[in-house]
């Protein structure tokens, strides 16, 4: 089957920085690919290359078989892009922003207006339709920005960190909108810094770091590899710290991370928590904190790369 998005050996340099260092991607039609990585990993650069906004220094990429460099105009007809920062005209109203895009895509005026109102209703923005965008909240802007990339009903959608900076409610609203689009058959490439977001939306996750792909797989595969959750234990008495470290380490079969008096460990087996509680109780250790939470990206990184996300920045730090 032909890939909706396909890339091989993408390289992009900005002066001394190598933003992409040989990235391969393959996305099947109708699926969601989550491009996961910390700040500066190269996510935006990858999206901009695939959306024809940047030319790669090496490698090839194609969208529905059209080369992003040689057949950029065809690619632009297939892709809707929502950039990392809402790129709507603040001086215009919500309707005007969407009508502008409809008109640019060649729709007659009436059709463009109709489509604008349709999208505003779908994105719960009808009440704000005639207000200037500069009066919108962050979540409203994000939704309008997403609506703007859907005016032409593109079969592919690129979303660059769509929920960064949104409050939890706006975030889950946006997730719901994305799920609806996927249900309609849209192929989605989504970048994120959050493992739970990739987990919630993506069929497949590609983890990138320093412009290189460091892991690929379904969310389940990745979680199995990295320990999908993390356990944190804080003893009441500092003298119990070594006991906690040895109990947790023995049961999890990995050496725990200790920050101050907080002991954390990645967890993949759900039976670990009751076992830890039992053993601590037997040892007579009193704890003030015992939590099981989804691993943060940092923990995934620690497991995959052996170094925390972004740590090389510090070691490379400027000579001054």
């Amino acid at each position, binding site marked *: 089957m032909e890939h909706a998005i396909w890339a091989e050996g993408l390289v992009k340099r900005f002066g001394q920085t190598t933003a992409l260092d040989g990235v391969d991607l393959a996305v099947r039609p109708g699926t969601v690919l989550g491009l996961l990585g910390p700040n500066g990993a190269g996510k935006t650069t990858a999206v*901009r290359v695939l959306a024809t906004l940047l030319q790669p220094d090496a490698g090839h990429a194609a969208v529905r078989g059209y080369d992003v460099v040689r057949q950029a105009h065809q690619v632009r007809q297939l892709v809707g892009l929502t950039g990392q920062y809402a790129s709507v005209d603040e001086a215009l109203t919500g309707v005007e922003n969407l009508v502008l895009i409809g008109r640019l*895509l060649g729709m007659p005026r009436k059709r463009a207006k109709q489509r604008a109102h349709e999208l505003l209703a779908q994105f719960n923005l009808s009440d704000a339709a005639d207000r200037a965008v500069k009066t919108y909240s962050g979540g409203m802007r994000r939704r309008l920005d997403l609506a703007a990339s859907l005016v032409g009903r593109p079969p592919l959608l690129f979303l660059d960190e769509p929920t960064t900076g949104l409050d939890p409610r706006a975030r889950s609203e946006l997730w719901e909108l994305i799920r609806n689009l996927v249900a309609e058959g849209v192929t989605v490439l989504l970048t994120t810094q959050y493992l739970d977001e990739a987990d919630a939306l993506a069929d497949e996750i590609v983890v990138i770091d320093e412009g290189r792909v460091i892991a690929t797989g379904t969310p389940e595969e990745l979680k199995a590899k990295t320990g999908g959750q993390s356990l944190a234990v804080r003893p009441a008495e500092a003298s119990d710290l070594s006991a906690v470290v040895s109990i947790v380490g023995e049961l999890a079969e990995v050496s725990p991370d200790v920050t101050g008096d907080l002991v954390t460990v990645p967890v993949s087996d759900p039976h670990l928590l009751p076992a830890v509680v039992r053993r601590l109780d037997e040892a007579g250790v009193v704890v003030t904190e015992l939590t099981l939470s989804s691993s943060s990206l940092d923990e995934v990184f620690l497991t995959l790369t052996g170094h925390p996300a972004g740590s090389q920045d510090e070691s490379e730090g400027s000579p001054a």
Partner: protein
Amino acid sequence: MTTATIPEVSPRVGPVEGLRQSLTLAWRTVVQVRHNPWEMSDFSIQPIMFVLLFTYVFGGAIAGSTSDYLTFMLPGMVVMNMLFVTLYVGQGLNTDLTKGVFDRLRSLPVARWAPLAGRIAADQVKQAWSIVLVLGVGMLLGFRLGTSVAGLLGAVVLLLVFALAFSWVAVLVGVVAKDPERVQIFGFTALFPLTFVSNVFVPAETMPGWLQAFVDVNPISILTDACRGLMLGDPWYTGAVAVPVVQSLVWAGVILAVFAPLSVWALKRRV
């Protein structure tokens, strides 16, 4: 499943389609002005304030009478105002670049030149409106046309042609500047000296020789001469008006030939 059907893709944009897209983008700028018509005053209040200040404070001293000075200065004021209004192209473009709107436009299947052409086309609308504004204030204060309506229209067309060329300077500033405020700072640091060292406010004859030499080749002086000739005629401008008109057009051509390629090159580097 409507969204998932594979749409027809066309290999390129035709020139007519590109022109239509540019006009759509120009419409966008006009809507911005309609929402906030006094945004124009950022730049237009300046010339109007100058008209008032120079006329009533210096006018008597410079020209012997305020009404004579108003007549002398107003054509130059229109020129100066035109230069400042071109900065809107730079500011608007810079805002689009910094806010990501330019990327969105580039991600759409539109002609590559449409976003820029739309900006510049829309600027012509703002130009026309601001010329009317300054002339209107001048007329209220007692400025009278010395030639004919045809002369006035000729001056307006010449100003718009020059503005079109000078817009490319503003495009370059808009691309190079970090943020929209810096575009405005450029306006003050570069355009003010350029208009002061011209014949806009006082005749060049009163200046020292070396300065006169500069004033005489300054395109702002030449354009001001052309406007004086077209709007006022004798005794404000004596000689064949065709000379400064043709020289202004040549200057416009030179500015266009230098700054259009330079701006396009800078834009390609920035995005």
